[in-house]
Protein backbone atom coordinates (compact mmCIF):
# COMPACT_ATOMS: atom_id res chain seq x y z
CA UNK A 1 0.00 0.00 0.00
CA UNK A 2 1.88 3.02 -1.28
CA UNK A 3 1.41 6.36 0.36
CA UNK A 4 3.43 9.48 0.92
CA UNK A 5 3.57 11.13 4.33
CA UNK A 6 1.17 13.85 3.19
CA UNK A 7 -1.15 11.53 1.30
CA UNK A 8 -3.44 10.86 4.27
CA UNK A 9 -3.51 11.36 8.01
CA UNK A 10 -1.44 9.31 10.40
CA UNK A 11 -3.10 5.99 11.25
CA UNK A 12 -3.13 4.59 14.77
CA UNK A 13 -4.43 1.07 15.38
CA UNK A 14 -5.46 0.26 18.94
CA UNK A 15 -5.82 -3.41 19.89
CA UNK A 16 -8.46 -4.00 22.52
CA UNK A 17 -10.02 -7.01 24.19
CA UNK A 18 -13.40 -7.29 25.82
CA UNK A 19 -13.12 -8.79 29.29
CA UNK A 20 -15.65 -9.80 31.94
CA UNK A 21 -16.32 -6.81 34.15
CA UNK A 22 -17.17 -8.69 37.30
CA UNK A 23 -14.45 -10.16 39.44
CA UNK A 24 -16.73 -13.15 39.87
CA UNK A 25 -15.22 -15.17 37.04
CA UNK A 26 -16.35 -18.72 36.50
CA UNK A 27 -14.36 -21.55 34.98
CA UNK A 28 -16.03 -24.11 32.77
CA UNK A 29 -15.09 -27.40 34.44
CA UNK A 30 -15.06 -29.25 31.11
CA UNK A 31 -13.09 -26.95 28.82
CA UNK A 32 -11.15 -25.25 31.65
CA UNK A 33 -11.70 -21.94 29.92
CA UNK A 34 -13.53 -18.87 31.14
CA UNK A 35 -17.29 -18.90 31.03
CA UNK A 36 -18.05 -15.54 29.47
CA UNK A 37 -21.77 -15.93 28.88
CA UNK A 38 -23.94 -13.81 31.13
CA UNK A 39 -21.06 -11.88 32.69
CA UNK A 40 -21.18 -8.11 32.10
CA UNK A 41 -18.26 -7.00 29.96
CA UNK A 42 -16.07 -3.98 29.50
CA UNK A 43 -13.08 -2.87 27.46
CA UNK A 44 -10.04 -4.37 29.17
CA UNK A 45 -9.08 -1.42 31.44
CA UNK A 46 -5.42 -1.15 30.27
CA UNK A 47 -6.72 -1.19 26.66
CA UNK A 48 -9.04 1.69 27.56
CA UNK A 49 -5.90 3.60 28.60
CA UNK A 50 -4.33 2.76 25.22
CA UNK A 51 -7.47 3.97 23.46
CA UNK A 52 -7.48 7.22 25.43
CA UNK A 53 -3.83 7.73 24.49
CA UNK A 54 -4.70 7.21 20.82
CA UNK A 55 -7.59 9.66 21.03
CA UNK A 56 -5.33 12.30 22.58
CA UNK A 57 -2.83 11.79 19.76
CA UNK A 58 -5.74 12.08 17.34
CA UNK A 59 -6.68 15.41 18.94
CA UNK A 60 -3.11 16.68 18.50
CA UNK A 61 -2.20 15.23 15.12
CA UNK A 62 -5.55 14.71 13.37
CA UNK A 63 -4.74 11.02 13.23
CA UNK A 64 -7.17 8.32 12.19
CA UNK A 65 -7.86 5.87 15.02
CA UNK A 66 -8.82 2.32 14.05
CA UNK A 67 -9.76 -0.06 16.86
CA UNK A 68 -9.10 -3.77 16.39
CA UNK A 69 -10.28 -6.73 18.37
CA UNK A 70 -10.46 -10.48 18.01
CA UNK A 71 -13.29 -12.51 19.48
CA UNK A 72 -16.99 -13.35 19.22
CA UNK A 73 -19.48 -10.83 17.80
CA UNK A 74 -20.47 -9.89 21.35
CA UNK A 75 -17.22 -7.87 21.26
CA UNK A 76 -19.08 -5.39 19.03
CA UNK A 77 -20.28 -3.80 22.25
CA UNK A 78 -16.74 -2.70 23.18
CA UNK A 79 -15.85 -1.68 19.63
CA UNK A 80 -19.00 0.45 19.41
CA UNK A 81 -18.12 2.05 22.71
CA UNK A 82 -14.63 2.81 21.38
CA UNK A 83 -16.16 4.52 18.35
CA UNK A 84 -18.58 6.41 20.60
CA UNK A 85 -15.54 7.62 22.53
CA UNK A 86 -14.02 9.01 19.35
CA UNK A 87 -12.36 6.25 17.31
CA UNK A 88 -12.97 6.53 13.56
CA UNK A 89 -13.81 2.91 12.84
CA UNK A 90 -13.26 -0.59 14.09
CA UNK A 91 -12.49 -4.08 12.91
CA UNK A 92 -13.46 -7.33 14.60
CA UNK A 93 -11.63 -10.47 13.58
CA UNK A 94 -14.24 -13.08 14.32
CA UNK A 95 -14.14 -16.75 13.41
CA UNK A 96 -14.97 -19.96 15.23
CA UNK A 97 -11.61 -21.46 14.34
CA UNK A 98 -9.91 -18.81 16.51
CA UNK A 99 -11.53 -20.14 19.68
CA UNK A 100 -9.11 -21.21 22.41
CA UNK A 101 -6.11 -19.47 20.83
CA UNK A 102 -3.34 -18.70 23.31
CA UNK A 103 -1.03 -15.69 22.97
CA UNK A 104 1.00 -17.14 20.06
CA UNK A 105 -1.88 -17.55 17.55
CA UNK A 106 -3.52 -14.40 18.92
CA UNK A 107 -0.43 -12.31 18.20
CA UNK A 108 -0.14 -13.96 14.78
CA UNK A 109 -3.81 -13.43 13.82
CA UNK A 110 -3.82 -9.82 15.02
CA UNK A 111 -0.56 -9.16 13.11
CA UNK A 112 -2.11 -10.48 9.91
CA UNK A 113 -5.21 -8.35 10.46
CA UNK A 114 -3.10 -5.26 11.15
CA UNK A 115 -1.33 -5.87 7.84
CA UNK A 116 -4.65 -6.15 6.06
CA UNK A 117 -5.79 -2.83 7.57
CA UNK A 118 -2.41 -1.55 6.42
CA UNK A 119 -0.90 1.93 6.30
CA UNK A 120 -0.38 2.09 10.06
CA UNK A 121 2.08 4.40 11.78
CA UNK A 122 1.52 3.49 15.41
CA UNK A 123 0.13 0.40 17.13
CA UNK A 124 -1.09 0.71 20.71
CA UNK A 125 -2.02 -2.09 23.12
CA UNK A 126 -2.77 -2.15 26.84
CA UNK A 127 0.09 -3.48 28.95
CA UNK A 128 -1.90 -6.64 29.70
CA UNK A 129 -5.44 -7.91 30.03
CA UNK A 130 -7.12 -8.14 33.39
CA UNK A 131 -8.52 -11.63 32.66
CA UNK A 132 -5.41 -13.46 31.43
CA UNK A 133 -2.79 -10.92 32.55
CA UNK A 134 0.14 -12.14 30.46
CA UNK A 135 1.16 -8.96 28.63
CA UNK A 136 2.51 -11.19 25.84
CA UNK A 137 0.31 -10.22 22.90
CA UNK A 138 1.60 -6.66 22.39
CA UNK A 139 5.30 -7.61 22.23
CA UNK A 140 4.25 -10.71 20.26
CA UNK A 141 2.69 -8.53 17.55
CA UNK A 142 5.85 -6.42 17.44
CA UNK A 143 7.87 -9.63 17.09
CA UNK A 144 5.70 -10.93 14.25
CA UNK A 145 5.78 -7.65 12.37
CA UNK A 146 9.45 -7.01 13.28
CA UNK A 147 8.57 -3.55 14.57
CA UNK A 148 10.28 -1.47 17.25
CA UNK A 149 8.45 -1.88 20.56
CA UNK A 150 8.23 0.28 23.65
CA UNK A 151 6.40 -1.43 26.52
CA UNK A 152 4.84 0.07 29.66
CA UNK A 153 4.62 3.54 28.13
CA UNK A 154 2.80 6.09 30.24
CA UNK A 155 3.28 8.92 27.78
CA UNK A 156 3.69 8.79 24.00
CA UNK A 157 4.62 11.81 21.93
CA UNK A 158 4.94 12.10 18.19
CA UNK A 159 7.59 14.66 17.29
CA UNK A 160 9.34 15.17 13.95
CA UNK A 161 7.96 11.92 12.63
CA UNK A 162 9.40 10.01 15.57
CA UNK A 163 7.85 8.42 18.60
CA UNK A 164 9.13 9.37 22.01
CA UNK A 165 7.73 7.37 24.88
CA UNK A 166 8.19 7.46 28.63
CA UNK A 167 8.59 3.97 30.02
CA UNK A 168 8.41 3.21 33.71
CA UNK A 169 10.88 0.49 34.59
CA UNK A 170 11.89 -0.93 37.97
CA UNK A 171 14.78 1.45 38.55
CA UNK A 172 13.62 4.63 36.94
CA UNK A 173 11.95 6.43 34.11
CA UNK A 174 13.25 5.82 30.61
CA UNK A 175 12.60 7.98 27.56
CA UNK A 176 12.81 5.88 24.40
CA UNK A 177 12.89 7.23 20.91
CA UNK A 178 12.09 5.23 17.81
CA UNK A 179 10.88 5.47 14.24
CA UNK A 180 7.40 4.78 12.93
CA UNK A 181 5.74 2.42 12.44
CA UNK A 182 6.20 1.03 15.92
CA UNK A 183 4.23 -0.58 18.72
CA UNK A 184 3.76 0.74 22.25
CA UNK A 185 2.05 -1.00 25.13
CA UNK A 186 0.40 1.45 27.47
CA UNK A 187 0.73 1.55 31.25
CA UNK A 188 -2.44 0.66 33.08
CA UNK A 189 -3.97 3.70 34.77
CA UNK A 190 -1.75 6.30 33.08
CA UNK A 191 -4.76 8.38 31.98
CA UNK A 192 -8.49 8.63 32.52
CA UNK A 193 -10.39 7.21 29.53
CA UNK A 194 -13.03 9.62 28.27
CA UNK A 195 -16.75 8.91 28.23
CA UNK A 196 -18.58 8.37 24.92
CA UNK A 197 -19.78 11.61 23.34
CA UNK A 198 -23.25 12.34 22.00
CA UNK A 199 -21.95 12.64 18.43
CA UNK A 200 -20.09 9.39 18.91
CA UNK A 201 -23.20 7.64 20.11
CA UNK A 202 -25.16 8.97 17.13
CA UNK A 203 -22.50 7.57 14.77
CA UNK A 204 -22.86 4.17 16.44
CA UNK A 205 -26.66 4.39 16.21
CA UNK A 206 -26.41 4.94 12.48
CA UNK A 207 -24.55 1.63 12.29
CA UNK A 208 -21.71 0.33 10.19
CA UNK A 209 -18.93 1.28 12.60
CA UNK A 210 -17.73 -2.30 13.10
CA UNK A 211 -16.32 -4.30 10.19
CA UNK A 212 -16.33 -8.05 10.63
CA UNK A 213 -13.59 -10.11 9.05
CA UNK A 214 -13.18 -13.87 9.10
CA UNK A 215 -9.82 -15.67 8.95
CA UNK A 216 -10.43 -16.30 5.23
CA UNK A 217 -11.07 -12.56 4.69
CA UNK A 218 -7.67 -11.78 6.21
CA UNK A 219 -5.78 -14.76 4.83
CA UNK A 220 -5.00 -16.29 8.20
CA UNK A 221 -3.65 -19.84 8.06
CA UNK A 222 -6.24 -22.05 9.86
CA UNK A 223 -3.42 -24.41 10.83
CA UNK A 224 -1.83 -21.71 12.96
CA UNK A 225 -4.78 -20.65 15.11
CA UNK A 226 -7.24 -22.05 17.63
CA UNK A 227 -6.99 -24.27 20.66
CA UNK A 228 -5.25 -27.16 18.93
CA UNK A 229 -2.61 -24.98 17.30
CA UNK A 230 -1.75 -23.16 20.52
CA UNK A 231 1.56 -24.16 22.11
CA UNK A 232 0.13 -24.03 25.62
CA UNK A 233 -2.83 -25.79 27.16
CA UNK A 234 -4.43 -25.39 30.55
CA UNK A 235 -4.11 -28.92 31.86
CA UNK A 236 -6.12 -28.29 35.01
CA UNK A 237 -7.13 -25.60 37.45
CA UNK A 238 -6.82 -25.92 41.22
CA UNK A 239 -8.69 -23.82 43.71
CA UNK A 240 -6.32 -21.73 45.77
CA UNK A 241 -5.99 -22.81 49.37
CA UNK A 242 -4.66 -19.97 51.43
CA UNK A 243 -2.23 -20.78 54.24
CA UNK A 244 -3.78 -21.03 57.66
CA UNK A 245 -2.85 -18.12 59.80
CA UNK A 246 -3.14 -17.47 63.52
CA UNK A 247 -5.95 -15.02 62.93
CA UNK A 248 -5.93 -13.15 66.25
CA UNK A 249 -8.13 -10.12 65.78
CA UNK A 250 -8.04 -7.36 68.38
CA UNK A 251 -10.79 -4.84 68.87
CA UNK A 252 -11.37 -2.11 71.38
CA UNK A 253 -9.46 0.99 72.40
CA UNK A 254 -6.55 1.73 70.03
CA UNK A 255 -4.15 2.13 72.94
CA UNK A 256 -4.91 -1.43 74.02
CA UNK A 257 -5.24 -3.07 70.60
CA UNK A 258 -1.96 -1.56 69.39
CA UNK A 259 -0.20 -2.74 72.52
CA UNK A 260 -1.57 -6.26 72.07
CA UNK A 261 -0.47 -6.27 68.45
CA UNK A 262 3.04 -5.02 69.20
CA UNK A 263 3.42 -7.55 72.02
CA UNK A 264 2.45 -10.32 69.63
CA UNK A 265 4.86 -9.13 66.93
CA UNK A 266 7.67 -8.84 69.46
CA UNK A 267 6.92 -12.36 70.73
CA UNK A 268 7.08 -13.59 67.13
CA UNK A 269 10.41 -11.72 66.72
CA UNK A 270 8.99 -9.83 63.75
CA UNK A 271 9.89 -6.53 65.36
CA UNK A 272 12.42 -5.92 68.08
CA UNK A 273 11.61 -3.97 71.21
Amino acid at each position, binding site marked *: MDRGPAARPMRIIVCIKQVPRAQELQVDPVTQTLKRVGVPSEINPPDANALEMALRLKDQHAAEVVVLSMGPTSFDESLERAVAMGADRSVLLTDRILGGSDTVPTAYALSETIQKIGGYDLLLCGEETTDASTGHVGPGIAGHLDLPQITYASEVRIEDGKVRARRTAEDGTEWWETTMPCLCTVNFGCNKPREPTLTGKIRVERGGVVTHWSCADVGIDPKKVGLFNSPTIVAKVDTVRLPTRAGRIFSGEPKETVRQL*LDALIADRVISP
Partner: protein
Amino acid sequence: MTAVHVLEDKSHFHGVWVFLEHRKQGLRDVSVELIGEGRRIADLRNTTLTGVLLGNRVDDLATYALGYGLDRVIVVNDPLLEIYRSRPYAQVMAQLIRRHKPEVVLYGASKNGRDLGGRLHAILETGLAADCVKFDIDAEGNLDMIRPSFGGKSLAHILCKKHRPQMASVRRNVFVAPPHDPSRTGEVVHESVELGPSDVDATLADFQEFTREGGLRPEEADVVVSGGYGLGDPKAFAMLQELADLLGGAIAASRKAVDSGWVPKMLQVGQTGMTVRPKLYLAVGISGAVQHLAGMQESKKIVVINIDPKAPLFEIADYGIVGNLFEVIPEMIRQVRALKSGATDVRAAVPATAR
Protein backbone atom coordinates in the same frame (compact mmCIF):
# COMPACT_ATOMS: atom_id res chain seq x y z
CA MET B 1 10.06 -13.72 10.69
CA THR B 2 6.99 -15.72 9.77
CA ALA B 3 8.74 -18.49 7.92
CA VAL B 4 6.94 -21.82 7.87
CA HIS B 5 7.20 -23.26 11.33
CA VAL B 6 8.59 -26.75 11.39
CA LEU B 7 8.05 -28.53 14.63
CA GLU B 8 11.23 -30.27 15.63
CA ASP B 9 11.37 -33.46 17.57
CA LYS B 10 11.34 -32.29 21.14
CA SER B 11 13.82 -34.96 22.23
CA HIS B 12 16.50 -32.78 20.61
CA PHE B 13 15.98 -30.15 23.30
CA HIS B 14 18.05 -30.43 26.46
CA GLY B 15 18.93 -28.31 29.43
CA VAL B 16 17.37 -25.56 31.48
CA TRP B 17 18.22 -21.92 30.81
CA VAL B 18 17.82 -18.83 32.92
CA PHE B 19 17.91 -15.43 31.26
CA LEU B 20 20.14 -13.36 33.56
CA GLU B 21 19.15 -9.74 34.06
CA HIS B 22 21.83 -7.48 35.41
CA ARG B 23 22.37 -3.93 36.41
CA LYS B 24 25.45 -2.05 37.58
CA GLN B 25 27.67 -5.17 37.48
CA GLY B 26 25.28 -7.19 39.62
CA LEU B 27 22.61 -9.77 38.91
CA ARG B 28 19.06 -8.75 39.60
CA ASP B 29 17.43 -10.49 42.54
CA VAL B 30 14.82 -12.16 40.34
CA SER B 31 17.58 -13.77 38.26
CA VAL B 32 19.35 -15.12 41.33
CA GLU B 33 16.05 -16.54 42.58
CA LEU B 34 15.51 -18.16 39.17
CA ILE B 35 18.93 -19.82 39.30
CA GLY B 36 17.80 -21.50 42.53
CA GLU B 37 14.55 -22.76 41.01
CA GLY B 38 16.23 -23.55 37.68
CA ARG B 39 18.72 -25.74 39.57
CA ARG B 40 15.87 -27.70 41.12
CA ILE B 41 14.17 -28.19 37.73
CA ALA B 42 17.43 -29.17 36.01
CA ASP B 43 18.15 -31.75 38.73
CA LEU B 44 14.63 -33.18 38.41
CA ARG B 45 15.18 -33.49 34.66
CA ASN B 46 18.70 -34.81 35.20
CA THR B 47 20.11 -32.12 32.93
CA THR B 48 22.30 -29.02 33.05
CA LEU B 49 21.52 -25.47 34.14
CA THR B 50 22.76 -22.62 31.97
CA GLY B 51 22.62 -18.89 32.60
CA VAL B 52 22.47 -16.59 29.58
CA LEU B 53 24.12 -13.25 30.07
CA LEU B 54 23.93 -10.58 27.39
CA GLY B 55 25.84 -7.36 27.91
CA ASN B 56 29.10 -5.63 27.31
CA ARG B 57 32.20 -6.84 29.18
CA VAL B 58 30.24 -9.01 31.58
CA ASP B 59 32.74 -11.88 31.98
CA ASP B 60 33.41 -11.21 35.65
CA LEU B 61 29.71 -11.24 36.36
CA ALA B 62 29.34 -14.51 34.43
CA THR B 63 32.03 -16.16 36.56
CA TYR B 64 30.42 -14.83 39.71
CA ALA B 65 26.96 -16.07 38.62
CA LEU B 66 28.24 -19.67 38.50
CA GLY B 67 28.47 -19.55 42.29
CA TYR B 68 24.69 -19.46 42.62
CA GLY B 69 24.42 -22.97 41.16
CA LEU B 70 24.83 -22.74 37.39
CA ASP B 71 26.74 -25.36 35.38
CA ARG B 72 27.67 -22.85 32.73
CA VAL B 73 27.04 -19.33 31.56
CA ILE B 74 26.65 -18.39 27.91
CA VAL B 75 27.99 -14.88 27.46
CA VAL B 76 27.44 -12.56 24.54
CA ASN B 77 29.51 -9.38 24.82
CA ASP B 78 28.64 -6.56 22.47
CA PRO B 79 28.46 -2.77 22.90
CA LEU B 80 24.97 -2.93 21.38
CA LEU B 81 23.90 -5.10 24.32
CA GLU B 82 25.22 -2.72 26.99
CA ILE B 83 21.68 -1.86 28.05
CA TYR B 84 18.50 -3.87 27.56
CA ARG B 85 16.92 -3.21 24.15
CA SER B 86 13.93 -5.20 22.92
CA ARG B 87 14.92 -6.06 19.39
CA PRO B 88 18.66 -6.82 19.70
CA TYR B 89 18.09 -8.87 22.86
CA ALA B 90 15.26 -10.81 21.20
CA GLN B 91 17.36 -11.39 18.06
CA VAL B 92 20.30 -12.69 20.08
CA MET B 93 18.17 -14.91 22.31
CA ALA B 94 16.34 -16.34 19.30
CA GLN B 95 19.66 -17.22 17.64
CA LEU B 96 21.05 -18.81 20.82
CA ILE B 97 17.88 -20.82 21.46
CA ARG B 98 17.79 -22.10 17.86
CA ARG B 99 21.47 -23.00 18.08
CA HIS B 100 21.48 -24.79 21.44
CA LYS B 101 17.86 -26.00 21.78
CA PRO B 102 17.21 -25.78 25.51
CA GLU B 103 14.10 -27.56 26.78
CA VAL B 104 13.21 -24.85 29.32
CA VAL B 105 13.91 -21.09 29.37
CA LEU B 106 13.03 -19.03 32.44
CA TYR B 107 12.72 -15.23 32.54
CA GLY B 108 12.09 -12.77 35.33
CA ALA B 109 8.57 -11.35 35.05
CA SER B 110 10.13 -7.91 35.25
CA LYS B 111 9.37 -5.13 32.79
CA ASN B 112 12.29 -6.15 30.61
CA GLY B 113 11.76 -9.88 31.09
CA ARG B 114 8.16 -9.61 29.91
CA ASP B 115 9.13 -7.29 27.08
CA LEU B 116 11.68 -9.86 25.91
CA GLY B 117 9.68 -13.04 26.54
CA GLY B 118 6.56 -11.70 24.83
CA ARG B 119 8.49 -10.78 21.71
CA LEU B 120 10.52 -13.98 21.67
CA HIS B 121 7.68 -16.46 22.09
CA ALA B 122 6.03 -15.03 18.98
CA ILE B 123 9.28 -15.22 17.00
CA LEU B 124 10.00 -18.78 18.16
CA GLU B 125 6.32 -19.79 18.11
CA THR B 126 6.47 -21.55 21.43
CA GLY B 127 4.62 -21.40 24.72
CA LEU B 128 5.29 -18.84 27.42
CA ALA B 129 3.50 -18.90 30.77
CA ALA B 130 3.53 -15.62 32.68
CA ASP B 131 3.94 -15.07 36.42
CA CYS B 132 4.46 -18.68 37.41
CA VAL B 133 4.55 -19.41 41.13
CA LYS B 134 5.46 -23.08 41.08
CA PHE B 135 6.94 -25.68 38.73
CA ASP B 136 6.64 -29.44 38.55
CA ILE B 137 7.50 -32.09 35.99
CA ASP B 138 4.58 -34.15 34.66
CA ALA B 139 4.61 -37.87 33.90
CA GLU B 140 5.76 -37.24 30.31
CA GLY B 141 8.61 -35.00 31.39
CA ASN B 142 6.91 -31.73 30.49
CA LEU B 143 7.33 -28.68 32.68
CA ASP B 144 4.12 -28.10 34.62
CA MET B 145 3.99 -24.32 34.79
CA ILE B 146 1.66 -23.23 37.56
CA ARG B 147 0.32 -19.69 37.62
CA PRO B 148 -2.48 -17.81 39.34
CA SER B 149 -5.48 -17.33 37.10
CA PHE B 150 -8.88 -15.71 37.12
CA GLY B 151 -7.80 -12.96 39.45
CA GLY B 152 -5.83 -15.23 41.75
CA LYS B 153 -8.79 -17.38 42.71
CA SER B 154 -7.25 -20.49 41.28
CA LEU B 155 -3.98 -21.91 40.04
CA ALA B 156 -3.77 -23.01 36.42
CA HIS B 157 -1.40 -25.77 35.34
CA ILE B 158 -0.01 -24.76 31.95
CA LEU B 159 1.66 -27.36 29.75
CA CYS B 160 3.54 -26.81 26.52
CA LYS B 161 3.58 -30.36 25.24
CA LYS B 162 4.57 -30.18 21.60
CA HIS B 163 6.67 -27.03 21.35
CA ARG B 164 10.14 -26.37 22.67
CA PRO B 165 11.54 -24.62 24.54
CA GLN B 166 8.95 -24.41 27.27
CA MET B 167 9.19 -20.84 28.48
CA ALA B 168 7.96 -19.21 31.68
CA SER B 169 8.33 -16.00 33.61
CA VAL B 170 8.46 -15.61 37.38
CA ARG B 171 8.13 -12.50 39.48
CA ARG B 172 10.64 -11.34 41.99
CA ASN B 173 10.14 -12.62 45.56
CA VAL B 174 8.36 -15.80 44.46
CA PHE B 175 11.34 -18.13 44.91
CA VAL B 176 14.03 -17.87 47.55
CA ALA B 177 17.49 -16.81 46.44
CA PRO B 178 20.12 -19.59 46.76
CA PRO B 179 23.32 -18.90 48.69
CA HIS B 180 26.44 -17.94 46.74
CA ASP B 181 29.26 -20.45 46.79
CA PRO B 182 32.47 -18.78 45.53
CA SER B 183 34.19 -22.16 45.22
CA ARG B 184 31.66 -23.54 42.74
CA THR B 185 33.14 -23.97 39.30
CA GLY B 186 31.57 -24.11 35.90
CA GLU B 187 32.02 -23.17 32.32
CA VAL B 188 31.86 -19.67 30.80
CA VAL B 189 31.12 -19.97 27.08
CA HIS B 190 31.47 -17.01 24.74
CA GLU B 191 29.08 -16.99 21.82
CA SER B 192 29.06 -14.72 18.85
CA VAL B 193 25.86 -13.79 17.08
CA GLU B 194 24.93 -11.79 14.03
CA LEU B 195 24.23 -8.32 15.31
CA GLY B 196 24.75 -4.96 13.65
CA PRO B 197 23.85 -1.33 14.27
CA SER B 198 20.79 -1.79 12.04
CA ASP B 199 19.40 -4.16 14.66
CA VAL B 200 19.12 -1.26 17.08
CA ASP B 201 15.75 0.24 16.26
CA ALA B 202 15.17 2.30 19.40
CA THR B 203 17.43 4.50 21.46
CA LEU B 204 17.33 5.40 25.12
CA ALA B 205 17.25 9.19 25.05
CA ASP B 206 17.02 9.79 28.77
CA PHE B 207 17.01 7.88 32.04
CA GLN B 208 16.03 9.24 35.40
CA GLU B 209 16.86 6.78 38.12
CA PHE B 210 14.44 6.56 41.00
CA THR B 211 16.13 8.10 43.99
CA ARG B 212 16.27 6.53 47.39
CA GLU B 213 14.80 9.67 48.95
CA GLY B 214 11.38 8.08 49.04
CA GLY B 215 12.86 5.32 51.19
CA LEU B 216 13.27 1.62 50.49
CA ARG B 217 11.50 -0.11 47.62
CA PRO B 218 8.71 -2.36 48.94
CA GLU B 219 10.17 -5.37 47.10
CA GLU B 220 13.37 -5.04 49.09
CA ALA B 221 11.96 -4.18 52.51
CA ASP B 222 11.49 -6.52 55.49
CA VAL B 223 8.49 -4.48 56.57
CA VAL B 224 5.86 -3.15 54.18
CA VAL B 225 3.19 -0.74 55.36
CA SER B 226 0.54 -0.74 52.68
CA GLY B 227 -2.38 1.65 52.34
CA GLY B 228 -5.71 1.22 50.61
CA TYR B 229 -8.83 3.09 49.68
CA GLY B 230 -9.74 3.37 53.37
CA LEU B 231 -7.09 6.06 53.76
CA GLY B 232 -9.44 8.35 51.88
CA ASP B 233 -6.76 10.91 51.15
CA PRO B 234 -3.21 10.96 49.72
CA LYS B 235 -2.06 12.92 52.78
CA ALA B 236 -2.73 9.91 54.99
CA PHE B 237 0.20 8.13 53.28
CA ALA B 238 2.56 10.48 55.14
CA MET B 239 1.38 8.79 58.32
CA LEU B 240 2.12 5.35 56.85
CA GLN B 241 5.55 6.54 55.71
CA GLU B 242 6.31 7.70 59.24
CA LEU B 243 5.37 4.28 60.62
CA ALA B 244 7.35 2.52 57.87
CA ASP B 245 10.41 4.64 58.63
CA LEU B 246 10.18 3.75 62.32
CA LEU B 247 9.95 0.05 61.48
CA GLY B 248 12.75 0.27 58.90
CA GLY B 249 10.33 -0.54 56.11
CA ALA B 250 8.71 0.80 52.98
CA ILE B 251 5.25 1.94 52.00
CA ALA B 252 3.11 0.35 49.31
CA ALA B 253 -0.48 0.61 48.18
CA SER B 254 -3.50 -1.22 46.83
CA ARG B 255 -4.69 -0.74 43.29
CA LYS B 256 -7.62 1.39 44.42
CA ALA B 257 -5.28 3.81 46.19
CA VAL B 258 -3.10 3.96 43.07
CA ASP B 259 -6.09 4.37 40.75
CA SER B 260 -7.27 7.24 42.94
CA GLY B 261 -4.00 8.96 42.10
CA TRP B 262 -2.79 9.09 45.70
CA VAL B 263 0.51 7.30 45.18
CA PRO B 264 2.51 6.31 42.08
CA LYS B 265 1.86 2.98 40.38
CA MET B 266 5.37 1.78 41.21
CA LEU B 267 4.09 1.28 44.77
CA GLN B 268 1.19 -0.96 43.76
CA VAL B 269 1.03 -4.46 45.23
CA GLY B 270 -1.06 -7.12 43.53
CA GLN B 271 -1.81 -8.79 40.26
CA THR B 272 -1.15 -5.75 38.09
CA GLY B 273 1.53 -4.45 40.45
CA MET B 274 4.40 -6.09 42.28
CA THR B 275 4.74 -9.16 44.47
CA VAL B 276 6.22 -8.71 47.93
CA ARG B 277 7.03 -11.26 50.63
CA PRO B 278 8.32 -9.23 53.57
CA LYS B 279 8.65 -10.44 57.15
CA LEU B 280 5.77 -8.16 58.05
CA TYR B 281 3.00 -6.88 55.76
CA LEU B 282 0.81 -4.30 57.46
CA ALA B 283 -2.34 -3.69 55.41
CA VAL B 284 -4.06 -0.47 56.40
CA GLY B 285 -7.52 0.32 55.06
CA ILE B 286 -7.27 -2.42 52.41
CA SER B 287 -10.36 -4.58 52.11
CA GLY B 288 -8.49 -7.33 50.24
CA ALA B 289 -9.57 -8.04 46.68
CA VAL B 290 -8.15 -11.33 45.38
CA GLN B 291 -5.97 -9.35 42.99
CA HIS B 292 -4.31 -7.76 46.02
CA LEU B 293 -3.80 -11.12 47.74
CA ALA B 294 -1.91 -12.36 44.71
CA GLY B 295 0.81 -9.82 45.49
CA MET B 296 1.23 -10.29 49.24
CA GLN B 297 -0.13 -13.59 50.50
CA GLU B 298 3.35 -15.10 50.82
CA SER B 299 4.34 -12.48 53.41
CA LYS B 300 5.60 -14.12 56.61
CA LYS B 301 3.27 -12.18 58.92
CA ILE B 302 0.19 -10.33 57.76
CA VAL B 303 -1.37 -7.66 59.94
CA VAL B 304 -4.67 -6.12 58.90
CA ILE B 305 -6.04 -2.84 60.21
CA ASN B 306 -9.54 -2.06 59.03
CA ILE B 307 -12.66 -0.44 60.44
CA ASP B 308 -14.80 -3.10 58.78
CA PRO B 309 -14.59 -6.41 60.67
CA LYS B 310 -15.94 -8.14 57.54
CA ALA B 311 -13.03 -7.00 55.33
CA PRO B 312 -11.95 -10.17 53.43
CA LEU B 313 -8.28 -9.56 54.19
CA PHE B 314 -8.90 -10.43 57.88
CA GLU B 315 -9.36 -14.03 56.72
CA ILE B 316 -5.67 -14.37 55.92
CA ALA B 317 -4.39 -12.16 58.75
CA ASP B 318 -2.04 -13.39 61.43
CA TYR B 319 -3.16 -10.43 63.50
CA GLY B 320 -5.77 -7.81 62.97
CA ILE B 321 -7.08 -4.67 64.57
CA VAL B 322 -10.65 -3.68 63.96
CA GLY B 323 -10.62 0.06 64.36
CA ASN B 324 -10.35 3.50 62.86
CA LEU B 325 -6.98 3.70 61.17
CA PHE B 326 -6.75 7.40 61.91
CA GLU B 327 -6.69 6.50 65.60
CA VAL B 328 -4.80 3.20 65.35
CA ILE B 329 -1.87 4.33 63.19
CA PRO B 330 -0.98 7.45 65.23
CA GLU B 331 -1.18 5.30 68.36
CA MET B 332 1.07 2.72 66.74
CA ILE B 333 3.56 5.38 65.74
CA ARG B 334 3.57 6.64 69.32
CA GLN B 335 4.07 3.18 70.84
CA VAL B 336 6.70 2.07 68.34
CA ARG B 337 8.61 5.30 68.88
CA ALA B 338 8.47 4.73 72.63
CA LEU B 339 9.73 1.16 72.15
CA LYS B 340 12.58 2.29 69.94
CA SER B 341 13.65 4.97 72.38
CA GLY B 342 13.81 2.30 75.05
CA ALA B 343 11.12 3.92 77.15
CA THR B 344 9.22 1.52 79.33
CA ASP B 345 6.53 3.89 80.50
CA VAL B 346 4.21 3.03 77.63
CA ARG B 347 4.13 -0.62 78.48
CA ALA B 348 3.93 0.08 82.16
CA ALA B 349 1.07 2.47 81.65
CA VAL B 350 -1.30 -0.21 80.45
CA PRO B 351 -2.18 -3.41 82.28
CA ALA B 352 -0.57 -6.46 80.81
CA THR B 353 -3.77 -8.46 80.58
CA ALA B 354 -2.91 -10.40 77.48
CA ARG B 355 0.48 -11.74 78.52
